[in-house]
């Protein structure tokens, strides 16, 4: 039988090629794919969507709990001191300021800064709705926020009844123009500027104030603190300082380093709320869908080429080398779909970021995790579809 009738080209049937099984398999897989461009394109689209789905679900699964870390990620501290009743950032409870004074005396601590939180009620002087705004009071000289906009404008905060507003504050708060006067808890304040950070899970609007303005407005007293930001002196050993702080400070406070804090906030949102279950189930579903689409695609391809595969078996190819062809075919489809899916995922992430204000980031972690999942899925579906191949009996096909 002349080789071109089978249509796999000369290499496949060249006896010398039998000694280079992988190259032959790769060549064969490639020929199958380009042979029917329409079908292959369809398969590619299916796999593309499956991978995109995995990207999106994984993005949510990682990003939603991280909404709770957004503000922390832009604060300067090595250790965080909070009440033992601390739940999550927006519900931290309080502890005595004296603990921070004590903490500052511990060797290796460069600075211990108090941060004050309060809920306020925002209203335009001309009336309208009273909106909940999250207020943060702090000493601008301590520079607790690692946000360029805040650093640049922090001397404005010293002026009486001046606030800086997060520019992600929702539009129902009205224009956040500099100089606009609004009432917070019935006290007239002035917007001194906006900054770009994001409201995270603090609420629908966030405003920063100097401590003195904050105490005047909220009638809070300085001796009850919500967060204590501790920065270490250069060269200080974090674990040693933390151990000493834990030992010296009372049992009404607890200490987190950044890794512990991330774990705590993520666990809060993932386990305490329904976020983890919803996006966890979404992730599992997306993996199953991906596997199904891949399997469908490959099984159909094999079924259609069964006569050719049977012929190859008849002329002496082993099941193993045919399995290699199918696996390589799966890999080619998957990688060809992976690249545009990653690009599309970046666009979708950007869209979701702007729509939902979630910190959906396209990082190396997502890329690596999805790639790993996809490789496992493609090998898995190739293995599944091999059963059809094993049935290929040269005598029965024709």
């Amino acid at each position: 039988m002349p080789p071109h009738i089978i249509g796999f080209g000369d290499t496949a049937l060249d006896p010398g090629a039998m000694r280079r099984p992988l190259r032959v398999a790769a060549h064969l897989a490639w020929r199958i794919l380009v042979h029917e461009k329409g079908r292959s394109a369809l398969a590619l689209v299916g796999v593309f969507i499956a991978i995109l789905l995995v990207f999106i679900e994984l993005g949510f699964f990682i990003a939603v709990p991280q909404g709770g870390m957004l503000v922390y990620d832009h604060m300067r501290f090595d250790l965080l001191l909070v009440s033992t009743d601390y739940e999550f950032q927006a519900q931290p409870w309080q502890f005595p300021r004296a603990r921070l004074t004590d903490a500052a005396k511990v060797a290796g601590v460069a600075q211990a800064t108090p941060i004050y939180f309060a809920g306020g009620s925002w209203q335009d002087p001309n009336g309208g709705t009273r909106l909940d705004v999250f207020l943060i009071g702090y000493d601008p000289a301590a520079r607790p926020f690692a946000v360029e906009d805040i650093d640049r404008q922090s001397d404005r905060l010293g002026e009486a009844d001046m606030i800086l507003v997060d520019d992600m504050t929702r539009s129902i708060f009205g224009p956040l123009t500099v100089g606009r006067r609004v009432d917070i808890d019935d006290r007239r304040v002035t917007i001194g500027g906006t900054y770009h950070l994001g409201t995270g899970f603090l609420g629908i609007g966030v405003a920063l104030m100097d401590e003195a303005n904050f105490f005047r407005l909220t009638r809070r007293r300085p001796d009850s603190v919500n967060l204590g930001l501790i920065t270490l002196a250069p060269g200080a050993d974090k674990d040693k300082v933390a151990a000493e702080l834990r030992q010296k400070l009372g049992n009404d406070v607890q200490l987190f380093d950044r890794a512990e804090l991330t774990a705590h906030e993520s666990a809060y949102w993932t386990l305490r709320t329904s976020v983890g279950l919803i996006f966890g189930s979404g992730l599992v579903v997306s993996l199953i869908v991906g596997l199904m689409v891949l399997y469908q695609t490959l099984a159909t391809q094999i079924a259609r080429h069964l006569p050719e595969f049977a012929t190859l078996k008849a002329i002496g190819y082993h099941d193993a080398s045919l399995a290699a062809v199918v696996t390589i075919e799966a890999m080619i489809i998957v990688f060809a779909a992976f690249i545009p899916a990653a690009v599309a995922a970046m666009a979708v992430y950007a869209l979701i970021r702007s729509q939902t204000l979630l910190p959906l980031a396209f990082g190396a972690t997502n890329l690596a995790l999805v790639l790993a999942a996809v490789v496992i899925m493609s090998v898995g579906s190739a293995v599944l579809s091999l059963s059809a191949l094993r049935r290929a009996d040269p005598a029965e096909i024709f």
Partner: protein
Amino acid sequence: MLGALALSRWHLAPSRVPLAWRNLVADRWRLLRAGAGIAFAVLLMLVQLGFERGFFTASLNAVAMLDGDLFVINASKYRFGTRNPFAPGDLETMRAVSGVAGVAPLYADWMDFFWTSPVDNKPHLVRVFAVDPDAPPVFSLPGIADQQALLKTDDTVLIDSRARHFLGMDGPITEAKLFGATVKVVGKFALGPDFMSDGTVVTSADTFAKYFRTPPAALPVETAVIRLKPGEDVAAAQRRVAAALPPSLRVLTKSEIVAFERDFQAKLSSAAPIFWLGTMVGFIVGTLISYQIIYTELMDRLPQYATLKGIGYGNGYLIGSVLRQALLTGVAGYIPAWLLCLVVYKIVGDIALLPLAMTLQLTLISLGLTLGMCLLAALLAVRRVIAADPAEVF
């Protein structure tokens, strides 16, 4: 000749041979596989749609349970779930309006009350509603409406058995600490958490007033619940009440106060787009699966379709048959998915404490999407049948 033509027309009438149906049931295994594939996509869409509705319903859970004809709130309130009360003196003004049978105050707080959980012995923020136990119930929820008389004893509370587990309200509990003071648990109701609140406590106005150190009569009111005399026109009464009150207060009907909260959630909640995206993905996946199924099916039956064409059936008939079969396959996948979804909603709803419920609206939307994806897939695949040339097939 005419007779023969009439006869053949009669023979070729689609209603005589239900081709789509026969094709569908010809191979049970294939039908099962096709149904399972489509059912999977349907379930995916239903779960995403259910989550979206569930989040929405959860955020409306308290408002939806309000029981009255008219509701008065502060005009500057932007959502139900935030404290913005008005002076209690306005209650008397409402009572004086003609047609009003009774006015019951609802007091509420979202950000001040902490409940010491018996689970971890730590304080957690809870939502507190306070009612007048002698007034008609302001909530129609079983457990509140029928047990509010028990709150006549001071320092007693009703608690939410569907609160998040870490609050310990779901376990056997007779005493707890609210705001640091010991209260007696006299009953339970099943409301469930929302985005803001993990659990809910209902108490009497007298107990509530203690925490604010004010006499109960001076407590500012969050919502006034007005009941009209039987046969009163609600819209007319709404105008009369609004006219009697200062413009700083707003009078809403039941559907208006629900819509008020729903609008806020729709505008500011970031959950909805996530689930719509998920639904869209389900639709696309479903279309792909249906296309695969229909395409394979058509390819296998191509000789038969070609034969039909050969003996004179037109493209219209064949397309119609393919579309009908696609719709039937869609329904075959939809019904088991719908049934399975009831189980999934029940299990996930209990774990996530979300009110996941199958509604007519969800059924119609998902059925529409299912039939839409099957039709779309069939239209894409049917080109093969149109192109089928009887002479070439054999």
